[in-house]
Structures are given as C-alpha cells and as structure tokens.
C-alpha cells in the first residue's frame, strides 16, 4: 500500500490511467498500445465506430477482461491484476443486465448485501439512490414490468448505490428510443454533476458524446485518433477520420503547390504544417454549414442546386460545382436562411479560408 499511496498523492487528478494496453481476441488485435488518462470527476466519452475497441477498453478497466499487456491504475493504485469484485467500480451494461429473478429493491441492494451492509442501512441507501434516479416507490416492482427507461435507471441506481470509485457505462442508451435517449442523457449528466463522480461513457453515437461529455476520446481501430473537448473535436478535427466520423463534412479534392492550394478555382495559402514536401497529396474538408451560398456568382466559384431538403431549423442543399472535373456533389447547410434557393438554380459558393481543413490524402 505504501508505494501506491505515494503514487496516488502525487497524482491526485488522474482517476483512471491506462498504460500501454494491448488486447487481442484470437488473431484480431482490438487494442494496440493504448494509453489514456481519465481525470477525477470528469465525464469522459470513448467514441468510435463498432469494433474500434472502446468496449474492450471499458471492460479492461472494469476487470471483466484481462489485458494481454499494459497496466490499469485507479487513483494511482495498480489494479491490473485485481478481479472485478475488488475494484469497486460501477458498471452499467448496454442491456442493463438486471437480475430478472429479483425486484427493484433486491437488484439495488445486491451490491450492499455482498458488502455485508446492515439491513437498516440498505433500506436507507436504496431509497436514497432511488430518489436520485427518480424512481422512488418502485422498490417492489418486478424488473420485467418496467419500461426500458426505468430499467436503465435501476441499472444506474444499482451501480451508484455501492458508491463506486468510478462509474463505467457501456452504450447505456442504445436500447432506448430517440426521445428517451435525449432525456436520459440529461439525467446522467445531472447525476454525474450532483455526485461529482468520474464517469467513463462508451458510445458510438457522436451526438450523444457531444452533448454529454466533458472530454471526448475518439477511437478507431484500437487506437486514439483525438482527445479533446466536444467543440474541439468538431471544429478542429486532427485527422481525416475524426473529421469524417464527427458531424457531416465535404471532402473536396485540391491542387497544391509549394505554398498554396486551389479549391474550386480559388487559391488559398497552404498552412505551415503542409509546406514540407512530406505531404505530397492533401485533401480539403469543409463542414456544410461553413459553405454560404449567394445569388451572385459572377466572380466566384459556383454550383448548381441539385436538391433541397428542409430539415427543421436548417435547409440542406446538394450542389454540383460548376467547371469541376470529374463532376462531384457537395453538401451545404444554411440555418434559418433569408432566401431559399431552388432546384436547378445556379449559386455562388463562399468558403472562408479558415473553414477549410486539410488532411493528408
């Protein structure tokens, strides 16, 4: 304990630390030299497409999977060899994994009973946590009588009642319908703030990650693509994968020379990091809402409107740029526009240099 507590004292802000974790299933490498620090009290989202290793990373933190290599620290203590029983982490499973033979009360009391908590304490703590998840008076309900959202709350309560050192959530909302998902998102965020608990939240839904996370870890093929605030990963994606995975984006071929590049006939200065010869081929990327359309196209690049979609607060256009070979289509979005262009109309394209991201091809 001695050396570990010194390490913990030196490292108060790191809740969970993964160091050089590798994990394979048979011949498939799921995690490769994976390292990540999760801060005490933050809500950190692991975001990525299915198969990127996010759930595997979560299970390794929880102890349900053993890494082939690497170490896991919890508040500075090396827990790599600890079985899940001893880690004192809470986990919320994708399918809730409620105990079907028990009622709500017994489900939540389960962890307390394993800790030999006195009966009166159990009753108090269960009703407290049921208040937190807003399920008071549901103690004696059978779990299979509950709706999906209620089951979700029971799963949350069951994990929270043992006062875990961190809460791990594995795609917790993926079985709920869109509306409920949005509500539960707020609910989880509220509980996290209220308790100040460290949460690691795995999801493949970028919108969910953006709306709930303090920090997002974008994962792909067993590695980390980018770590940042939700806004950072959206506005300043560091890799082509992140740009593509988060939000909508147009990839547009560009011609480059030593100090500038051309897009739709316009010339832009090449950013410093691309000026060395290492990046021979680059591709441009522009978010749809960063392309503004004008009625006047006399002296600027232009496109023909191929389709118009009304999506509530915004209008989305599919556009075919003029004089670009081979022909291509791009997407533009305008929020609450003054003027809506029509199908077949020719429009001017205005793109600010700062809104163009370049990635190696």
């Amino acid at each position: 304990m001695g050396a570990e507590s010194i390490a913990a004292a030196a490292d108060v802000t790191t809740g969970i630390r993964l160091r050089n974790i590798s994990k394979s299933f048979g011949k498939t490498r799921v995690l490769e030299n994976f390292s990540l620090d999760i801060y005490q009290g933050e809500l950190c989202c692991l975001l990525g497409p299915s198969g990127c290793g996010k759930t595997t990373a979560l299970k390794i933190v929880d102890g349900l999977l053993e890494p082939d290599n690497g170490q896991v620290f919890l508040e500075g203590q090396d827990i790599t060899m600890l079985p899940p029983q001893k880690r004192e982490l809470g986990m919320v499973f994708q399918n809730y994994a409620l105990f079907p033979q028990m009622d709500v009360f017994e489900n939540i009391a389960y962890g307390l009973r394993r800790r030999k908590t006195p009966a009166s304490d159990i009753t108090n703590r269960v009703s407290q946590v049921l208040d937190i998840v807003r399920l008071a008076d549901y103690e004696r309900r059978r779990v299979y009588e509950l709706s999906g959202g209620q089951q979700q709350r029971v799963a949350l309560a069951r994990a929270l009642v043992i006062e875990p050192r961190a809460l791990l959530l594995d795609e917790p909302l993926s079985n709920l319908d869109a509306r409920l998902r949005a509500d539960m998102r707020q609910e989880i965020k509220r509980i996290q703030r209220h308790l100040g608990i460290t949460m690691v939240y795995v999801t493949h839904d970028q919108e969910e990650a953006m709306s709930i996370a303090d920090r997002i870890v974008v994962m792909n093929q067993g590695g980390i693509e980018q770590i940042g605030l939700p806004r950072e990963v959206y506005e300043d994606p560091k890799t082509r994968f992140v740009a593509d995975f988060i939000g909508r984006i147009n990839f547009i071929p560009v011609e480059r020379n030593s100090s500038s590049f051309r897009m739709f006939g316009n010339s832009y200065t090449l950013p410093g990091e691309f000026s060395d010869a290492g990046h021979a081929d680059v591709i441009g990327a522009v978010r749809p809402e960063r392309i503004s359309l004008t009625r006047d196209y006399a002296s600027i690049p232009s496109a023909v409107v191929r389709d118009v979609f009304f999506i509530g607060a915004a209008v989305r256009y599919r556009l075919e740029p003029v004089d670009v070979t081979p022909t291509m289509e791009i997407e533009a979005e305008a929020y609450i526009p003054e003027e809506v262009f029509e199908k077949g109309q020719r429009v001017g394209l205005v793109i600010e240099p700062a809104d163009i991201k370049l990635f190696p091809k």
Partner: protein
Amino acid sequence: MMKAGVAGLTGRFKWQKYILPVLFFILLVIFVIYPTATVFENSLKVNGNFSLGNYIDMFARPNFFKILWQSFLVAALVAALSTVLGLIIAVVVLKTTLPLRRLFSFATVVPLIVPGFVASLAFIYLFGRNGLISYQLLGINLNIYNWPSVVVVQCMDFTAMAFLLISAVLISIDSQVEDAARDLGASEWEVFQTITLPLLKPGIIAAVILVFMRSMASFGTVIFLGGPFSTLASASYTQLIGAYNIETAATFNAVLMIICAVAFWFYVRAQATSSRIRAPFTGATRKPINFSRPLKILLMGVISAFAIFILMILASVFLAAFTRYIGTDYSFTFDHMNRALQRGSAGMMNTLYFASITAVVVSITGIILAYIITRIDFKGKGLLDLLATMPFAIPGTFIGIGYILAFNQPPLLLTGTWIIVMAVTIIRQVPLGLRAGASVLSQQDRAIEDASSSLGANKITTFIRIILPMAGPAILVTALYAFVSTVQTLGAIIFLITPGTKLLSVDVFEAVYKGEISTAAALSVIMLLLSAAGMLGIYFIQQRGKAAKWVQRALLQRPM
C-alpha cells in the same frame, strides 16, 4: 380432404376452417380419450357391474400402501439424485474450463440410447452374483436385487434428461448478468449461488417433475432389479401378465395415471410461471465461473465416477454380446449375434418399419397440428392442444392396457393387429411432434407468412412453400427423435404384441426374462446401434446449426 382444407384455411366459409381441427379431435378422442376412459371404467367394474370393489380390494391389500409408498420413494429419490447430478454435469460442462468436458457430456447422454431394461441387464453383468466388478474383481457376493439398485440404474438413465433440461436453461443465461454481480462485489461462489442457480430454477423444477414422472412410469428396471420390491408400474405388469387380472392391473394403472397427471399439472404450471421471468438474452458469450479449487476437484470426482459408470455399463453390454459367456468365458464369439440376428430378424424389421413410419407420421402431423393450434383461430383450440399433449403424461403401461381394453371389440377390433401397435407408437410421439412444430413456428417471423399471403398465396401454398421449407431441418430432427424413442418403447407395447408383431425391445425384454443373458445382450446391441444411428443423424443436423436451439426443448417431450 385437401381441397376442403384449402377453403377452410382461407376462412372464406367459417365452418370449413373447422374441418382439420375436427378431424384431429375425432382421432384424438378415439386414440387417447377412449382408451383412457376405458381403463378408468374397467377399474370401476367387477364382473361387468359398476362397483368400487377393485379400489376397495386394492386399498385392502396388505401391500398396496407399501407399493404406493415405494413408488413414491423411488421416484422422488431418482428425481432428486438425477437432478443434482444433471445440474452438476451441466454446470461443469457449460460453466467451467475443466478438462474432458466433451467426454462428460457425451457419457451423460449415452443413456438416451440405452433403455432402462438394457441398463438393468448391464448392471447385473457388472454387479450381479457373478458380476465382473463385484465378484470377479472384488470377490464379493452382492445381493443387487433390491430398491437401491433400481434407484442407481434409473438415476443413470434419467440424468441425461435432467442434464439436457438444465443445460437448455443454462445456455440461455446472459453472462452479462453474472458480470454485473461480479462488479457489485460478488465472489465467484456468490455469483453462482445468488445469480446462476436462481436463474436455473425453471430447468431444475422441470427436471425434478419430469424425471419423477418417468421414474414412476418405468417398470423394466423394477422387474429386473427390484427382486421382491415392486412399484405401481411393475405391479400392474405382474398383475396383467402373471395373474392375468386385468381389472386389478387397470386399477393400479388408474392410480399411477392420477399421480402422473398431477405431476404434469405442476409441470405445466411451473413452465407458465417461469416463462414470465426469463432474462432477455443478449447473445453475450458464455463465461466460466471460477469455482474454488477444492470444489472443482469435488465436481470433477463426482462426474468422472458417473461417466466411468455409464461407459462401463455400455461396454459390458458389448462384452456380453461378443464373448462366449460373460463372467466365465471371455473368448470372442459371434454366435450370440448370429442367434440374435436369426431370432430377432422379424422383430428388427418390425422395429425398423414401425419406428420409421412413426417418425414420418409424427413429424408431419406435428407441424400440421402446431400450425392449426398456433395460426388458426377457432373455439376449442386449448382443448385440442391439451388432448394432443396428454399422451406425454400417460404412463406406458396405462396406455398399453387402455388399448387392449378399448380395441378388443367391433367396430374397433384391433387387438392382435399391427395397426394397434402402430397407433400406440404414433400417439405416444404426437406430443413431441406438436411441441417441436410449435417451437419452430414460434421462431418463425409471422411477417414472412403475411408477406406470402399479401403476394397472393393462399394458406395451403404458404404452408407448403414457406413454412415447411423453413422448418425442414427441424422436422427431420423431430422424425429422428421419434424414431429413437419408438425403437426403445417397451411399456406401451408389451401388452399389445403378438407373435406376428414382435418388436426388438420386446425380444430383449423376453430374453432377459428367460435368463438368456448373452442373446439379450446381442439383441440389445442391435437396438443400441439403431438408436445410435438416429442420434448421430440428429447430431449432424444440429452441427449444421439451424435446428440446434429448439431441439433440446423438444427432447423434453420424449414420452415415458
């Protein structure tokens, strides 16, 4: 009939949709209700007059309550022991990483092809007066003709059933639920005790009740190994064959039937409750439970002993069949086999015919019946379901006596014909066909059938072009199970057999009865091989995947 069926199923004319249900009703009333009622009627008759005399006599018999108590004792013990063993084996095979698990599960299901009376025979080879183990190896003279032997052999036989029932539930437990418990601080033993075991409850209850019923109804082991000990089933056999006292036999069977019906009612109720608390299966991979070392050693010891015992039983049948005289002369010989092939050839061919026809009829009837019950809406649906399931709860000797009593006068004079044997083997497998068919249909997406209808196909076309092909492998497996079960049937047919309709199982039974040990063994080997062929077929179809899920559940409906 087919043509009428077309219109009936499309529901254009309301009365026509009743054609098939009514036809099945009539058949089931004739072949299930009528014989059942006849047994009760006969139990209530003395010299042709209604009287409670048989019951009064029976209760007045000094040994009746002893027999009743013994029947309960054996059935309850066998149910408890088989379930515990089945549970242990299922847990070891599916929930641990202990070595030799495949061998253990193989050994456990071997008795599915070894009928109780053959196992009894093997038990005598091994532990009897001149037994290989008791006398030859240990030099002791055991008296094995008593109730503990009956319990041991029946346990060996029925553990397979308990194992399959419990495994079916165990496989469907979501290991994420166990992981959740681990997360909440439960030790491996606590995970098993508080999560896995309670979730196995439906399987355990089913195993206890169904093994109890089968043990109650089985008489071969009691006759061969019980010595002076007797149960309701064995007493009814001796009353009929030994004393030719058919009314007393009917009375014994009536009591037996009532006990089985009550047990079955409990089973149905338990199934209904448990289906409501099934955990949603997420397809999470099954995860072993890491039991403590001493426990692992204990489990391993128990199931190794059990597996060795079964394999010895199996081996001794072969040994007896191919050596000159088991216990004294171990030189190889094919004489017994030759004799068996000669003497048993008629029985063998009959068994093959009867079992094959039963298999075909049952598998097709089963899916049609299941279709009628699950897809057509008509009054009396529940009753039809009940009638078709009833043979499952009826003990073999009961239905056997029922058939002799019911079909011995015109217009249904069937006694002594092959039709009566055929009818009994088919009717006994109907519940299997129905359950298998129903589980297949319940897994099929009804939208596919609706799609077929909306594309203009009528119900018959949909049935033939859509449902049957999708149910193909399942129907085949049902047929094979019916085949294997029929090959082994004894209790139901033993009273109905005439020299012209000999069956292999009866040949074995008679050879054992006459003390022709080696011939009995050789005949048993032929019978085992027939059953094994059927089982292998099932295994290969299951390996191909499609039929795997529901098959174990269908097996539970094997009649006694």
